């Protein structure tokens, strides 16, 4: 019953969407006023999608196994929390969430832009509806989340245990609120171009609609990184896995966009570039969905190993990209800003350099992610592109980037302002070098790359702290807290990554019960093990005593055997020590008598990495606090 209502709401919603598109064309082609219920129809289509989503959630929660998606991905034994999150732990449910978020952004846009020019408002909604319509068709025709199964099974197949984790409840929705959210600024761009309102005011308006999804995306990526750290048991926080890269690509593009739209807002420059970046950001978001959903990649995220769906998505992406480019090419020529060049060492110059470096980073991530796929398609040769590739190419530019992030904000718009800041910048350099020397002495590491990493990130952090501490004549409300927090966050992130890279320790070994294994200053004793029964799994817990410089810590990693589906997972045990972690994961073993393999990691300053993710996210949130001197 619920499944019927769910599907019917989706169908009515897509009919409404089609109707909205027709109303728009009627108005544009034949004149006459726009239908008075145009926006009301849009809101109705949003509510119908929301209803259908809620019904799917309910079906998962009550384990309605008459629905294929529920049968294949749920089980009555599963804790409530994961029944709920199971809604988006499969292809159909996650695509419905995807559409819900497209629609939600249009709905929010209508709520918050009541004062906006009418034609820009309804044209934007027209484009948002087109996106919603295309994806609704895709959902209903190829991936109906309410598809039924008969006879009704008594029990479901269960959810992949690695996805049964509290963070899974949050990670996908935030990631989607992020990259699907870029659909709105994409529609706003096309709306602006079509109605000839792509100008300085557009930039002021678009800013918010870039910051909002950017903040969600930042937080979502942070959650994913944290989840991978404690759930996968490989000790690291970022693996340059294609699926991670799929979310990083739109993040880099949108970060570039945030900066270029500022230049457009303040100096009437970069009109064309901002338009291209807007299209690129959304297309990369879709491309990420394609990579993850098509089954091309083998990972925990790729639940739909159905090449046909992949082809559909690829077709939709091409269609959307082409239409956007055609509109851009036809309409942008009339709406260009100030074509003058950029004055050396002006604020806008530093932002252009920032965009240049970000595009370079984006190129590296994109080519590293897609090259192995393309190569295997065209030559049947398979290669891997791992962390070393990215680290080798990107590391030197990260250092330059940090310095520029420290200098840029001190530059003035439209003015070469190097001379007036020379003393200030010199003092930043000196103070960061002094602190770096101290750090290097205390930690007894004189490696050149280490010193470079610490010095450059400290330079950025010091420049942020200085701005905050010494501008006493500025009122608190005038501070650009968004920039201060996110830039400081990035400085701390690179500092933490550098420290982590140089001081972390790891070793793998096999120990028998009662034995002790030593590595440098660590001695690990396998002291005990016992088993436990969880709600839908059995657990074998190991007890390890770790001695480090006379201090003793007990860690209890475990192996879980889930019953539905039958699968093993390794649960890590982590104990923090100020900013660092001691971390143990056990290996699955069929024969415990020959000892159990463990992986021990001492993750130096890893908590500073989480902290910097939070700082950057807070920066995004603070962009919504109105500044006093802001328009």
């Amino acid at each position, binding site marked *: 019953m619920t499944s019927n209502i769910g599907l019917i709401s989706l169908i009515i919603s897509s009919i409404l969407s089609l109707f909205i598109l027709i109303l728009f064309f009627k108005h544009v082609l034949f004149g006459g006023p726009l239908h008075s219920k145009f926006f009301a129809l849009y809101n109705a289509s949003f509510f119908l999608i929301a209803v259908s989503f809620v019904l799917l959630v309910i079906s998962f929660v009550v384990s309605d196994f008459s629905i294929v998606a529920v049968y294949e991905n749920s089980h009555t034994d599963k804790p409530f929390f994961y029944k709920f999150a199971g809604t988006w732990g499969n292809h159909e449910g996650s695509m419905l969430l995807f559409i819900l978020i497209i629609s939600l952004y249009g709905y929010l846009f209508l709520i918050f832009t009541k004062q906006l020019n009418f034609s820009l408002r309804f044209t934007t909604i027209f484009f948002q509806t087109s996106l919603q319509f295309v994806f609704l068709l895709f959902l209903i025709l190829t991936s109906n989340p309410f598809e039924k199964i008969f006879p009704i099974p008594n029990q479901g197949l269960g959810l992949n245990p690695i996805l049964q984790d509290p963070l899974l409840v949050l990670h996908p929705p935030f990631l989607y609120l992020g990259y699907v959210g870029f659909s709105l600024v994409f529609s706003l761009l096309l709306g602006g171009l079509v109605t000839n309102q792509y100008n300085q005011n557009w930039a002021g308006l678009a800013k918010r609609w870039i910051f909002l999804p950017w903040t969600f995306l930042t937080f979502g990526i942070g959650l994913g990184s944290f989840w991978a750290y404690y759930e996968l048991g*490989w*000790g690291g926080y970022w*693996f340059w*896995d294609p699926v991670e890269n799929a979310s990083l690509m739109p993040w880099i593009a949108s970060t570039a966009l945030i900066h270029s739209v500022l230049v457009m807002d303040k100096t009437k420059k970069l009109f064309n570039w901002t338009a291209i970046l807007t299209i690129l950001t959304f297309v990369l978001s879709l491309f990420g969905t394609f990579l993850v959903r098509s089954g091309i990649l*083998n*990972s925990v995220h790729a639940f739909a190993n159905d090449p046909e769906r992949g082809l559909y998505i690829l077709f939709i992406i091409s269609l959307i990209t082409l239409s956007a480019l055609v509109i851009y090419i036809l309409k942008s020529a009339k709406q260009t800003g100030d074509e*003058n*060049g*950029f*004055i*050396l060492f*002006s604020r806008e*110059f530093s932002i*252009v*350099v920032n965009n*240049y470096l970000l*595009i*370079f980073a984006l*190129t*590296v991530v994109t*080519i*590293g992610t897609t*090259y192995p796929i393309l*190569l295997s398609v065209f*030559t049947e*040769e*398979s*290669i*891997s*592109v*791992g*962390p*070393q*590739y990215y680290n*080798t*190419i990107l590391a030197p530019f990260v250092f330059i980037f940090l310095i520029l992030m420290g200098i840029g904000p001190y530059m003035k718009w*439209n*003015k*070469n302002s190097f001379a007036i800041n020379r003393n200030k910048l*010199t003092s930043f*350099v*000196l103070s960061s*070098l*002094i602190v770096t*020397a101290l750090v*290097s002495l205390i930690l007894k590491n*004189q*490696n*050149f*790359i*280490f*010193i470079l990493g610490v010095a450059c990130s400290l330079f950025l952090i010091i420049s942020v702290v200085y701005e905050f501490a010494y501008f006493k004549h500025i009122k608190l409300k005038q501070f650009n807290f968004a920039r201060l927090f996110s830039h400081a966050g990035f400085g701390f992130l690179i500092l933490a990554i550098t420290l982590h*890279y*140089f001081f972390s320790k*790891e070793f*793998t070994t*096999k120990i028998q019960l009662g034995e002790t294994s030593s590595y440098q200053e660590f001695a690990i004793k396998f002291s005990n093990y016992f088993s436990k029964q969880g709600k839908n799994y059995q657990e074998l817990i190991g007890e390890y005593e770790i001695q480090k410089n006379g201090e003793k810590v007990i860690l209890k990693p475990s192996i879980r055997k889930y019953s539905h589906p039958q699968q093993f997972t390794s649960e890590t045990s982590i104990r923090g020590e100020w900013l660092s972690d001691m971390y143990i994961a056990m*290996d699955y073993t069929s024969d415990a008598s020959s000892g159990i*393999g463990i*992986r021990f990691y001492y993750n130096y300053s890893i908590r500073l990495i989480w902290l910097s993710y939070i700082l950057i996210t807070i920066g995004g949130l603070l962009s919504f606090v109105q500044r006093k001197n802001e328009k």
Partner: protein
Amino acid sequence: MKNLLFLLIIFFLYQQDSFALPSQDREVKIYKNIRCLACQGQTLNDSNSDFANDLKKVIKRKLDNNETDQQIYSYLTARYGDWILFNPPVKQSTLLLWFFPVFILVIGLLILYKRTVFGKSKLS
């Protein structure tokens, strides 16, 4: 400015022998560059699977025989293909992978140079 130079010189004198990357075990460094073919995306170093343990033994033996990294890698790629290495080798089919970013870097720099107004601010 003089202070800065002075400080820099002191800095470099004091850390002469430190341009190399951290003195990680050569063994671990090799393990980290090798994909555990029996696992999902794990490196040999992070895995205790039978495949990983066997391959580690093979590599260890080769290290004891004083083979170079290059010899070990070519032995592995001859048997398992380039897929097993996380750091892709530079060769004909990977030229674009390594040099396309460089191309973007240069093109970007040219555009940047062309669009920049040098000298004192012309507006003031």
